[in-house]
């Protein structure tokens, strides 16, 4: 009886350590300057754009994910990843200072100085020849204090030896986040801002501890 118990315990320990050693090793990428985020919107007057050049935060990726598209699995699949990024609202600027003030007020900048994103799931999409690695990212976007889960396509592209550019696009409705734009009073109610806005970003990250790629 004891012999059996010992044997089973040993098997359990071996099995456990086997599982542990197979656990994913994560590579950390830190946000770097040079990113870009654009918000494109419409109104009854004219289309507008706001741009920011600051995306902070970090990303942790399964080290077994080859960033070279040629080496990635063809069918894709779930990828182990952690992403937490933020955009400082006041770094978003349009071509007009007044519009900036209206935009920052609508985003409730004084109470919620940052737009934040937390990844929940990353799935690699089937490969397409000659194109960067594509994924579908599901995550929580927090704008003006309101959090909503959004799905968006993103691509990963290696830049140089140790940088990774994450690019993505997503359309969101401002009303989903309780963002209400108050145009200037003078507009006499003529300017109505469109609810749907197009977000696009290019996020530059660099490996926290530069190591030769596999």
């Amino acid at each position, binding site marked *: 009886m004891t012999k059996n118990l010992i044997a089973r315990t040993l098997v359990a320990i071996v099995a456990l350590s086997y599982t542990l050693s197979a656990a994913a090793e994560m590579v950390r990428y830190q*946000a*770097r*300057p*040079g990113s870009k985020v654009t918000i494109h919107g419409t109104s009854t*007057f*004219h289309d507008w754009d706001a*741009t920011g*050049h*600051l995306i*902070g935060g970090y990303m942790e990726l399964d080290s077994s994910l080859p960033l070279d598209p040629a080496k990635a699995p063809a069918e894709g699949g779930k990828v182990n990843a952690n992403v937490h990024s933020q955009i*400082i609202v*006041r*770094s978003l*600027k349009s*071509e*007009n*200072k*007044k*519009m*900036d*003030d209206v935009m920052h007020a609508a985003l409730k900048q004084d109470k919620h100085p940052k737009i934040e994103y937390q990844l929940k799931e990353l799935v690699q999409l089937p490969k397409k020849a000659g194109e960067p690695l594509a994924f579908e990212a599901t995550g929580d976007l927090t704008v003006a204090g309101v959090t909503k889960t959004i799905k968006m396509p993103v691509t990963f592209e290696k830049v140089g030896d140790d940088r990774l550019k994450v690019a993505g696009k997503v359309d969101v409705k401002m009303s989903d986040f309780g963002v209400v734009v108050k145009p*200037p*009073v*003078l507009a*006499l109610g*003529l300017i109505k801002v469109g609810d749907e806005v197009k977000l696009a970003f290019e996020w530059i990250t660099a490996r926290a501890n530069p190591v030769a790629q596999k």
Partner: protein
Amino acid sequence: MKNEKTTDLNRREFLKGSSLTSLVMLVGGAAVKAQDGSSEEKPARPAGASIKCGVIGCGVWGREILTSLARLPNAPVTAVCDSYKPFLNRAGRMAPKAEKFSDYKQLLESKEVQAVFIATPTYNHREVAEAALKAGKHVYCEAPLAHTVEDARAIAKAAEAASKSYFQSGLQGRSDPELLNLATFVRSGAIGKPVMTRSQWHKKESWQRAAPTAEREYELNWRLRSATSPGLVGEIGIHHVDLTSWFMNARPAAVTGFGSIQHWRDGRDVPDTIMAVFEYPGRELHSFDSTLANSFEAAYDTFFGTDSAIMIRDRKAWMFKEVDAPLLGWEVYARKEGFYKETGIVLAANSTKLAAQGDNPVLDAQASQDTALYYAIESFIANAGLTNTAVEDFTSNFGDDEAGLKEYLKDLQGSKLPSAGYKEGYDATVIALKANEAILKGQKLELKDEWFEI
């Protein structure tokens, strides 16, 4: 940097603006005039973060700066400095909460100063500006930047290197909404092809100031000695020269100068009557004349183009159309004023469609009563605040990354309020100093491209 070809005519940009604004005017025209200054609609220019200011050099102009600062709620004056006690005391009365310093170095050590205005005599600018930038302050340096090209270059280099500091040069016209509108107007081709500009600054005054002691009088009259003074063209002409360069979107290629002492023979060696003719790359001419012997017509700038001429006087402007010029349309309804035998169409920031791009024309009418200096200082405070938040946002995310920070701040140029940076200040200073040289020599000087490299 190659000399840019003259006048980048951009009619599309001009017209793009008008169609939007015509809609606003059409629908809201009458209502706009009625909605006059209710407390929610004021001010058209929002106040930003507070920037603590120090003024170094509290002479006549330093006190003008103090007056403008007093009107800005987000620009508290925390320090004033002058080496001459009576001026320092006077400044202290204008800014009672400010700490008084007789040594600028001590002012720069104060943590209660985030930005400094340098309004000392021109030949002192370099020393103070370099020290201020080193101390990490934002700097507004009066124009001309310096009395030698070498000093001006040193200031510009220091400004370029100090990425966390915002530097603005005292070419206040670049922040003036009236002139900003006119610049777009002229560059859109409204006057046709610019061929010539005439500017003058005439005032019967000696420029000599009296003081209680001979020593102080000598110091105070630095403007009358060519060793320390860039003369009429350097101190005053620089603004007119810069205005033309700005509107022409080019830099003069050569300058010919004439000058002598015609009236004030008191031992000075700075000419009291001068004329400088600037030649632009397309051979357009700009003549600037200035005298301390006569006041007729004071100061004005006239731009002559193939379709019309524009005269700018006291921050008002008029357009005089040629008989064969194409109809712009709106001039039929515009206000007109008579000048001897000519009829001028009034151009004012609040009555052209250009100005109504998103701004309140009624408030603009009131606002254009302000001086160009006020707008320049307002821009300076706003841009300094913008620089502060940008540096803070960047370093909180990425730490100390000098190159990255410079790149990031460059991307923010578009969000800044209009102003003359160190490059514009440097270019204008070099042009004015070379013009002064041409005047003193009575010669033509080619303005070499390498002189404009920082």
